């Protein structure tokens, strides 16, 4: 059963990646509401030209209003333009509070205010971008039906749910979803966005109850996001909780559940190895396999090479050490046989394994640090593109493999990764593979 491979739109510079390795690599694209509000013509063009074969959804980003207002301010202390544009579309409440104070459950206690908020959030997704598609120069070639296509599904207002805030926000989310379901137009689908803290997924009873409540709204599917859940670092209880919550949301009627920020563990869970706990998994161009709900930001970019057998993006210097110690950089044939023979690696490595350095090429810049100027390395744009293309090639193979493989083959693949790399990476480098295998084995017998 194919696993839906979704990708998140981040910046216009990333547009071309949505057709890589091919036009049919992805099932869907998610566009954040602030981008849609700020650059609707550009987003319309992107959806029509680059991704016309893909489904799309617009994330209304309503959770952004509930956090510390500082998170939405620019360097001058004003609301970021894109979010301000979004807030304006959502009506008086959002426009008044953005950048001033967080939205509280009590702000939406009045039914009239909540209903207005729901309607505006949905109308924005329905028309703000699609109405601009007819102005696109390519519209005439696509025919009326395809020229102004709407999103695959609308997402009712949603909020970040934690153990302590669940009791206040969930009832509002349910009311919002129920209103959306009642008022949905012909052929429309509604997917709820379920954004939860890691703590919230640890209790079995809590997971079942949450899933039951949101399924009762009658929505057609779900996008699930667990705050900052890095599947390569997570513990067994978190991974088990993730699979179980997804399965509960799917239910016996197998409603679609897409993991908004998932890595290879989620891809396996979407396959037979995880009893199809997810219908699809999403990530960004090289980033986004996990993400904090409240943006953390910062950090110095480092070149990372996606090691296929580890299913991990590994710092270039570590990847080099592992591969060199294994002897897999002896020559190109050895590299392609043991590491990767994807199109990107064929182009980068070619017939010379020494070219592996191209996955780590950097430029040195002077940066002012606490104790004075320091020379630091930053990957070149070419390096980032090479690493990204290799990553996307491997991700495509992972989704195909897990969608078609048997459970045993999926688990055996993890074991072979351990066997291949433990001697060079130590236990730390492979323990996530052991844990994934353990969780998938336990979960489904």
């Amino acid at each position, binding site marked *: 059963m194919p696993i839906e491979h979704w990708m998140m739109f981040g910046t216009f510079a990333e547009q071309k990646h949505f057709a890589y390795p091919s036009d049919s690599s992805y099932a869907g694209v998610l566009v954040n509401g602030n981008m849609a509000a700020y650059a609707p013509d550009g987003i319309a063009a992107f959806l029509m030209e680059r991704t016309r074969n893909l489904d799309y959804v617009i994330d209304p980003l309503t959770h952004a209003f509930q956090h510390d207002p500082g998170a939405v301010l620019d360097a001058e202390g004003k609301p970021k333009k894109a979010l301000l544009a979004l807030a304006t579309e959502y009506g008086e409440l959002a426009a008044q509070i953005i950048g001033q104070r967080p939205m509280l459950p009590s702000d939406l206690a009045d039914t009239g205010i909540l209903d207005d908020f729901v309607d505006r959030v949905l109308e924005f997704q329905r028309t703000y971008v699609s109405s601009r598609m007819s102005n696109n120069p390519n519209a005439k070639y696509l025919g009326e039906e395809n020229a102004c296509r709407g999103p695959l599904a609308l997402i009712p207002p949603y909020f970040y749910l934690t153990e302590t805030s669940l009791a206040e926000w969930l009832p509002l989310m349910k009311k919002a979803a129920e209103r959306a379901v009642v008022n949905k137009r012909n052929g429309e689908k509604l997917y709820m966005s379920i954004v939860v803290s890691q703590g919230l997924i640890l209790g079995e009873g809590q997971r079942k109850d949450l899933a039951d409540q949101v399924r009762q709204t009658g929505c057609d599917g779900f996008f699930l996001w667990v705050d900052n859940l890095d599947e390569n670092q997570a513990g067994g209880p978190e991974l088990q909780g993730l699979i179980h919550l997804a399965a509960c949301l799917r239910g016996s009627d197998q409603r679609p559940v897409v993991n908004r920020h998932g890595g290879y563990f989620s891809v396996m869970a979407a396959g037979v190895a995880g009893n199809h706990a997810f219908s699809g998994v999403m990530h960004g161009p090289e980033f986004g396999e996990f993400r904090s709900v409240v943006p953390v930001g910062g950090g*110095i970019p*480092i*070149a990372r090479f996606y090691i296929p057998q580890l299913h991990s993006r590994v*710092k*270039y*210097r*570590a990847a*080099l*050490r592992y591969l*060199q*110690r294994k002897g897999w*950089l002896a020559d190109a044939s050895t590299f392609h046989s043991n590491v990767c023979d994807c199109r990107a690696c064929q182009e980068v490595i070619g017939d010379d394994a*020494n*070219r*592996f*350095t191209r996955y*780590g*090429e*950097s430029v*040195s810049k002077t940066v002012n640090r606490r*104790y004075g100027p*320091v*020379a*630091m*390395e930053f*990957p070149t744009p070419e390096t980032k593109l090479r690493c990204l293309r290799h990553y996307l090639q491997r991700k495509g193979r992972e989704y195909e493999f897990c969608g078609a493989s048997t459970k045993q083959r999926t688990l055996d693949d993890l074991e072979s990764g351990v066997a291949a790399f433990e001697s060079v990476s130590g236990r730390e480098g492979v323990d996530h593979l052991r844990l994934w295998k353990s969780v998938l084995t336990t979960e489904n017998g």
Partner: protein
Amino acid sequence: MRPAMRSESQLVEMLVEYLKSTGFEVQTELPNMGQSVDVVAHKDDRLWFIEAKRKGLGRALAQCKAHELVADYVCIALLSSTILDSTREELGRLGYGLLLYKVQDCAWHWEVEPRLNGSVWHPQRSVFERNWTGGGNAD
């Protein structure tokens, strides 16, 4: 007697002084594969990478792993008068050198001699050498 050392940068300054006095050309804070090498010393066509710490070997050992791909000799310089036997054995197993700055005599001592590193990957070494001439702090 020198005043008490307050910072790693002071330790590095003194290390640089010592290495120069023994015939090395020295640069500090050179980038290598996304991290910075505290001290890069050069003598007799050999590259020495040295991580300097006031205390605690753990981080230095982690950084040194990547240095094995480029440097002929990988060393750690520590502000300490002694080390544990287990540390000595571990460094010996890894082939890393250890310089200790002992406050008793305000001098550097080679506590563990480094072994010539056989793990250099020459393509990456070439990249470093090309970049080395263009960056870092020449001391």
